[in-house]
Each structure stands twice: as structure tokens, then as C-alpha cells.
């Protein structure tokens, strides 16, 4: 039954069904506003968009560059989604797998009320790693990027390059098993469009073995090299659907735990503590890496977090609303092989 279809035609199907659902929802007045993606004005980007009436639905797109996690706009709700008189508007949200996971996880953390949110599920087919392509092209300007068949075509003034989609998709998307929003029984009525039944995920985390087997010094050097360009603009934090704290730990000044300078030790401590805070919460959307203006790849760290919680606590964020996240729970039987013991 498996028919091999190309990315290009998949995109078209996703986009069409998404538009149809969106139109129907708006027409039936089931939602007041739809959050989705529109075509970016710069070749390697997409712009989130708020759609309020049926004619605007045409502007919705799906093109493998929709890297922003839209759950960000719901936690906390941006003012445009709140009516001064009616209160919270009914929101339709274009939901790829990781947006769905984010919403479900945020619900477990009591951060969001999904009653007036309708998830327009789409079977995401992967997000292009735009940083990797940019690096590959180097000092040339990309003027156009589109998918044709199973290839990514990048065009500039006097060059045209083809990349295979499989290789240039985000590292997280390569191993992603939750393409459409996971279905949970607590939210039966909130789904429109595609969604997927997920009970548990099998993942062997093979992609991490190479890095993990490196000696400590090499790991340190790699991390140091990767992070040293960080400008501390906090785009990673602001794009992360899980970073909803009103006051981030780096901004606290009573007491000041970690400084905000761009010295390497401060940068590393920021990313280390942020990783700590995302343990068991990261939904593997890769938005942090996609938005980083200086091209830092945080996906490796995010993968590691997923691995730790999966192996230690058998937990995957955002697929099961009945399970508490590991850092909100405790158990007598946790493994403690890392504790110091007498010989």
C-alpha cells in the first residue's frame, strides 16, 4: 500500500487540506482566528500569520521552512488573541507534531487551557535545516529555495544547487516519530485534520553515539567552539514554547546566579542551565536552533535531554497527558548508579 510520494507533492497535499480545514472552521465560526504560517519575504524563512477571515486563508502555506513553534503564541497568549470584552478568543492553530506535543505538555504543566483551542493537525514532513544550507552556499546570496520532487533547489544570481531533502532536513526531524499531533483522549474534541495515535516511542538514539563516545576534552572543545559565537540575544529562549517563565533565571538579580556577559563560561552556564530546565520538557521542535541568528546548533543537546528522560524515566514529553513529567515527580525505584559508593 505504501506509495512513494515526493516531498513536493506531499507539501501540496498538506497545504491544500490545511487551507480547506481552515476555511471551513472560519466559515462555521468555530474559531475567531487561525495561527499559521505564511510565505516569508526572505528565501529561507516563513512568517507566522494570524488569519481572521476566509479570504486571507489563501496566504497560508506549508513549505518545510515553517520552523517556528506556534504554541509560543498561546503561552502566554499574545494580546491579539484576547478580546478586551469577550476574553480569550477561539483559536485554530496549524499543528505539526511538535506543536501538538508542546500544547499537550503545556497542558500537563497547567499553562494552557485547550478548551478554546482547535488543533488543525497536519502530518509534518520535516523542516529544512536552513543553517546547514546557508553554510553550504557560503558567501553567495540565496534568492530562492523550493522543493522539487525529493530535492531542495537553491537558486541564486548565478548558481543553482540541488540538495537531497533527506540529508538537509533538521537533525531532529530525521529521527522524529511524531509527525502529526499526538491524539490524547482528554482532548477528543479539539482535533481537526490529521492526528496520530502514539503510545510510546521506540528510539535507539543512534545519532548520539558518536558524540557520546568522544573523550571529555573533545566534547568540551566542541561545545565551547559551538557556543562561543552566542550573542546572548535569547532568540532561542524566546522561540522556545517551553520557556514561558516571566523572569528567566539569567535575568534574576536577587541573587545574581549567572552573569549575562559573552564570556565563554557565562555562555556555557546559560546553555547548561537552560538545558537543565528543559529536561523532560523539550518537545524536539528545533525552533531554538532554527532561529539562532549566528547559527548555533542546540539540537544535539536537545536530543541528549530526550535520551536521558527516555532511558531513565521512560518519558517522552507531550504524548501522554496522564503521565507527569519526570521532574515533577519522584520514585523510590529510580536508578542511582551515579551515586558515590564505598568500594
Amino acid at each position, binding site marked *: 500500500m505504501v506509495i512513494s510520494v515526493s516531498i513536493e507533492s506531499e507539501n501540496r497535499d498538506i497545504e491544500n487540506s490545511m487551507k480547506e480545514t481552515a476555511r471551513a472552521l472560519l466559515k462555521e465560526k468555530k474559531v475567531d482566528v487561525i495561527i499559521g504560517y505564511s510565505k516569508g519575504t526572505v528565501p529561507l524563512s516563513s512568517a507566522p500569520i494570524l488569519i481572521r477571515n476566509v479570504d486571507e486563508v489563501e496566504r497560508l502555506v506549508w513549505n518545510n521552512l515553517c520552523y517556528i513553534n506556534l504554541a509560543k503564541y498561546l503561552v502566554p497568549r499574545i494580546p491579539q488573541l484576547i478580546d478586551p470584552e469577550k476574553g480569550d478568543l477561539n483559536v485554530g492553530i496549524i499543528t505539526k507534531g511538535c506543536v501538538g506535543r508542546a500544547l499537550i505538555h503545556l497542558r500537563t504543566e497547567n499553562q494552557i487551557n485547550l478548551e478554546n483551542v482547535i488543533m488543525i493537525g497536519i502530518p509534518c514532513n520535516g523542516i529544512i535545516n536552513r543553517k546547514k544550507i546557508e553554510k553550504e552556499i557560503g558567501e553567495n546570496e540565496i534568492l530562492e529555495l523550493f522543493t522539487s520532487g525529493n530535492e531542495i533547489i537553491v537558486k541564486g544570481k548565478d548558481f543553482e544547487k540541488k540538495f537531497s531533502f533527506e540529508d538537509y532536513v533538521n537533525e531532529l526531524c530525521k529521527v522524529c516519530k511524531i509527525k502529526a499531533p499526538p491524539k490524547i483522549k482528554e482532548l477528543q474534541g479539539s482535533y481537526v485534520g490529521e492526528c496520530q495515535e502514539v503510545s510510546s516511542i521506540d528510539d535507539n538514539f543512534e545519532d548520539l553515539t558518536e558524540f557520546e563516545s568522544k573523550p571529555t576534552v573533545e566534547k568540551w572543545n566542541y561545545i565551547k567552539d559551538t557556543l562561543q559565537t552566542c550573542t546572548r540575544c535569547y532568540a532561542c529562549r524566546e522561540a522556545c514554547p517551553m520557556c514561558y517563565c516571566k523572569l528567566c533565571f539569567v535575568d534574576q*538579580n*536577587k*541573587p*545574581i546566579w549567572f552573569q549575562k556577559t559573552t564570556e565563554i563560561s557565562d555562555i556555557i552556564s546559560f546553555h547548561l542551565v537552560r538545558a537543565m530546565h528543559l529536561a523532560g520538557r523539550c518537545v524536539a521542535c528545533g525552533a531554538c536552533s532554527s532561529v539562532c541568528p549566528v547559527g548555533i546548533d542546540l539540537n544535539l543537546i536537545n536530543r541528549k535531554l530526550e535520551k536521558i528522560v527516555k532511558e531513565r524515566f521512560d518519558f517522552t514529553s507531550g504524548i501522554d497527558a496522564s503521565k507527569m513529567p519526570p521532574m515533577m515527580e519522584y520514585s523510590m525505584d529510580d536508578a542511582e548508579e551515579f551515586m558515590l559508593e564505598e568500594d
Partner: protein
Amino acid sequence: MHNPYIPKLTSIKDVVSENKVNDIKTLELEFQNDDDYKKFDYIPGQFAEISLIGKGECPIGIASSPTEEGTIKFTIKKMGTVTTGFHACEIGDIVGVRGPFGNGWPIEDMKGKDIVVIGGGFAFSTLRSLVVYLLDEKIRKDYKKITIIYGNRDSGEVLYQDVLEEWKKRDDIEVVLTIDREEKGWKGKVGFVAPIVKEVGPSSDNAVVVVCGPPIMIKTTIQVLEDLNFNDHQILNSLEMRMKCGIGKCGRCNIGNKYVCIDGPVFSLAELKNLPNEY
């Protein structure tokens, strides 16, 4: 040219706790270097960036008057990291001071006029500076009638009790104190500042009114003043804003194209109405 971010060092000469709750203290600072003191040439209403080395810096209005020679005073409420640090200070500790910054009260323009000073809560510090200045022997004759209306939540919150007592004894100044709710042994008035202003009813003829206090007090008082025929140019106001540098470089205290730290903090109501409502 010199590095404008380097504070001049002063040592704490005296610490006075100003209220019953003990969260407002007045620090009296003495410059370590006489030269620095001479260069610290200020008028009432200006502020300075005072810093506790290792904790940080914050902008505080100068509470002393240039006529009180030798030291400068700052009244500090315990709020954030730096101010809490100041509250832990003892006599002899070292405090950095940069300044004076800002425009201050327009004392030149106020000459020959009646002056009404309306204050609420602990926003009275730069008003203390102004009144002490106006009451100085050499200066008093330049100004006409001075009226002070000072409101507080309760009697324990009244700042600068010693100077207030002195002022009450003088006959060239009218001091009206008020608290929000009735209290045993309280001799002043009872009620919010705005109705008391109405009751006192200062004349708007050739007068300037200086208002400092919490936003809600300012709002209600300005209505009363407008009823008393004060125009927008006669009403002066001192703004607060988050600041870091005090010299218009760090960027955060702008209201429209004006910086509160260099174009303010004193604005007349007329000026404020011209600025975007973003403060």
C-alpha cells in the same frame, strides 16, 4: 574628556531611619575628595546615580539642598538589590556617586512667584531639597508665599519629621500634613491629598505648583488644580523611569525622543501632554 561611568567615592556619615516600618532610610554622604564635592554642583530636583560597588547602581533624587553644605543626602526605600544593599550599610561604608544629573526644579523661573509644594509618600525627597533651598535666608526673599501639602498613609510614614517641625514653627511658610485614615494623637488633617488641596485652595495667581507622588495621587490632584485655575505650565512634575547610565546613553528612559535622565526628570504638565503616553 573623562570616563563618565566612574563614580566619585563618598563615605557614609550618617544613616537615619525615616519611618516606623524601617524600609526608608536617609544616607548622609561625605565626599572623600573635596574637589569632587566642589564639582558636584546641583540644584534641587536633580538626581544622582549612587552605587554600591559589587551590587550595582541606581538613580536616586538628591534629598539635601545645595544650601546645606558639606554633605549630600539620599532617601532610599528598600526595594531591589541595590537599595536593599544600601539598607545594610553602616556609617563609614563607601558609596560611589555620579552626578548630578537631570534638569532639576526650574528655580530661576520660579522666582517672584507663590510656590505650592504637594507631595505624597516617600516621593517627598526632592521636595525636601526644594523647600530647604527656598527657606534659606539669602534665597527666601526671592520667592513669595510657600505652601506645603504633604500626605501619607499613616503617621509612621511621614518623612523628615525634624525639618517638618522646624518649618511648622516658621511663619513664612504654611505646612499642611495629612494622613489617609484617622489616628489617635494626630494633629494634622485627615484625608487624601486631592481633597485637602481643594480645602486649602491655593491661589493660581502668579503661582507654581510642584507635584510629586504616586500616579493615582498625581492624577486626582491635577484635576483639583485645574479646577483651581492652574494652567498646564504652572504644574510641575518629576518623573521616574528605569535608568542605568544617567547620561542618555543606555537608552531605556526615553519617552518619545526625550530622555528622562537628561531632559527630565522635571517636566511641566504642558510638556508631558506633548509627550507620548509611555511612562
